[in-house]
């Protein structure tokens, strides 16, 4: 009883003290600043988050009449949280994220059409980047950076990166540990290497036999790589591969350039980048995604939000993001001197623009069960045929 009483009183005392220690009331500002709330999904303590914090600190002085509220949401949750909140009538004024779900979000009405709002203000941004923010001819976001999967390697361990798919396979067979990231997103680039297509220009699935053969060839190739990885117990995802690559156990890793900040911090000058290897069908074509700021249709401060977004993507901010976090800038006024960024831009030249059409959902829905081929042993040809059949049902 005594113990209970003691614990109880301790709790009450703690609550009272903490309440008293709460944030002090701030004096009322002279003119009420416009509040802009913005969400992001950069990891805690990552290079991107640190750079963003620095940029926001200077925004406080450069944009005195706007108060910026920032919320970090874990990446696996940001789209869900944003869509749910917006659908329920709330949500932030804007959020920054890859254009993974742009099509879906436009169709459910959770991102605002800013073609009129941003008219004439976006001259500094590359057409490529702006294209990634468009759907059906209308602009839905302000582009920030470009992202795609590339081949990162440790220069001390690999002198020249494999230029063809055969070279990569030989490298792995020879015992050099390479962390390939397997999955329907990271592997997309290999379709181009074998000349296979998923979509044609009108975004219909290309189901003719000749194309299916090439797609099958790509999947078989990746399966071969998977079996080598499995036999050697090498990492098969970007999360597992981070420690080995940065510690020097793995010689290379296939991942997007969002991780460049971490790789560069660990490997410094030893970090090299190359496009995913080309193959019998041509160069690789990884999915090119564009990160951008999207605006909430419920927001009442869209003009102020746009102003903040443009500040966060101006030349200074983009240069900082580029140097510290490895972002390939959408702002064309940025001077690119880093050879790594130049290498990325080269790799992006053959990348495939990530489609926003509804049919893209059918790709995710039918071509992501790669474990069927890798683990369960389904022949690649059958799996590809089933995938196309399911996607065109």
């Amino acid at each position, binding site marked *: 009883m005594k113990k209970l009483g003691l614990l109880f009183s301790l709790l009450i005392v703690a609550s009272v003290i903490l309440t008293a220690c709460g944030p002090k009331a701030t004096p009322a500002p002279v003119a009420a600043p416009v509040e802009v709330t913005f969400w992001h999904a950069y990891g805690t303590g990552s290079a991107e988050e640190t750079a963003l914090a620095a940029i926001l600190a200077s925004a406080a002085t450069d944009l005195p009449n706007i108060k910026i509220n920032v919320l970090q949401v874990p990446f696996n949750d940001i789209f869900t949280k944003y*869509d*749910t909140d917006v*659908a329920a*009538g709330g949500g932030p004024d804007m959020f920054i994220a890859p254009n993974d779900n742009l099509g879906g979000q436009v169709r459910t009405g959770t991102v605002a059409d800013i073609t009129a709002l941003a008219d004439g203000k976006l001259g500094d941004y590359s057409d490529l980047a702006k294209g990634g923010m468009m759907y059906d001819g209308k602009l839905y976001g302000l582009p920030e950076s470009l992202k795609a999967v590339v081949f990162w390697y440790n220069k001390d361990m690999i002198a020249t990166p494999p230029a063809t798919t055969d070279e990569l396979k030989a490298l792995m067979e020879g015992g050099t540990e390479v962390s390939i990231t397997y999955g329907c997103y990271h592997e997309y680039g290999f379709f181009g290497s074998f000349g296979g297509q998923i979509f044609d220009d009108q975004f219909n699935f290309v189901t003719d036999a000749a194309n299916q053969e090439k797609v099958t060839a790509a999947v078989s190739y990746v399966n071969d790589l998977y079996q080598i990885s499995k036999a050697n117990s090498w990492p098969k995802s970007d999360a597992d591969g981070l420690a080995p690559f940065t510690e020097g156990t793995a010689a290379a890793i296939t991942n997007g350039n969002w991780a460049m900040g971490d790789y560069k911090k660990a490997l410094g000058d030893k970090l090299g980048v190359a496009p995913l290897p080309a193959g019998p069908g041509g160069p690789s074509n990884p999915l090119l995604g564009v990160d951008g700021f999207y605006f909430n249709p419920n927001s009442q401060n869209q003009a102020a939000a746009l102003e903040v977004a443009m500040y966060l993507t101006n030349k200074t901010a983009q240069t900082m993001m580029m140097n510290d976090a490895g972002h390939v800038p959408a702002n064309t006024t940025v001077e690119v001197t880093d050879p790594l960024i130049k290498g990325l831009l080269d790799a992006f030249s053959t990348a495939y623009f990530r489609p926003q059409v509804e049919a893209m959902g059918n790709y995710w*829905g039918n071509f992501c*069960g790669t*474990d069927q081929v890798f683990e369960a042993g389904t022949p690649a040809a059958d799996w590809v045929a089933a995938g196309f059949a399911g996607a065109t049902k």
Partner: protein
Amino acid sequence: MALAKKDAGQKVKRNLLPYYYLLPAFLIMGVITFYPLIYQVIISFTNFETQHLLLGLRSPELRFVGLKNYIDIFTGALPVENFNFFRVLEFNFWWAFSNVMLHVPAGVLIAVMLNTEGLWLKKLYRALYILPIVVPPIVVATVWRNIFDEQYGAMNQLLTTVTALFGHLDPVRLRWLTEYTPPIPGFLPGAPLTLAYYAMMIANFWLGWPLMSVIATGALQSIPRDLYEAASIDGATGFQQFWNITVPLLRPAMVPAAVYGFTITFNLFGLVFFMTGGGPARSTEILVTFAYNLVRNLRWFGVAAAFAVIIFGVALIVLLITNRITRATQSYSEA
């Protein structure tokens, strides 16, 4: 006359008194518990999704679809990969059952061992053995996930060391959480148990036996020592004493504990979700993790509501059965 009237008045007051006592709780529960429950049942018959969040039931595009959600769940017509309701249900039951079957005997044995007279450091052991319960579930799951990591996990390293002792020098690289093929083929027909299940069993065992042990310790201390002394005078061995005295006298405490453990494990969201997320191809999915998936990631609120009602039905059946069991053992021990 006046006395009778006063009595009558008091009688009425006494009759209504329980209701006054119940009023605050039921008033609040009516708003925050019963209303959402009924709402949930209603939307389980509709095609409620994200776009209906703003206006709720007043949405113009909301349609009643009757039992479609329920039928879709039972027949596996939901557009999600690898989902088979009955397989998930069977796995869920087996998961809870096998865990309890493991935890209760282990907890009892360890409690009996700790109860040995004259054991040194007893208090220290008892205090430390309870630590698994205090660690937040998400942390437990994450740590065990690291332990079962294919390349750097402690479990594989331990196995490598052990097998090295027997001369097998290749490093052990079991793919605990990602291996598709069940190690014991055909075990649990209808719901093949992958390595991830065994990994979760080990993790949950770490988490589960301390509670059983604490309950058993409490019950052990109420068993009079004279019984043991009488038995040893009669020449009973330690094992016989355990089986004939300890076990029957522990039963009234351990059966409710087992039932409690079954219920908790049946709905063990934290460990399952954060350790395997449903496992390779949903082989370790349990009902509550799938329900969470429906609500959070897929956002098919109508289907999720139907699923919640189904889980409720399952829980009700489980409750009725376990109540029967508890009552049966209680009356047995009283008899």
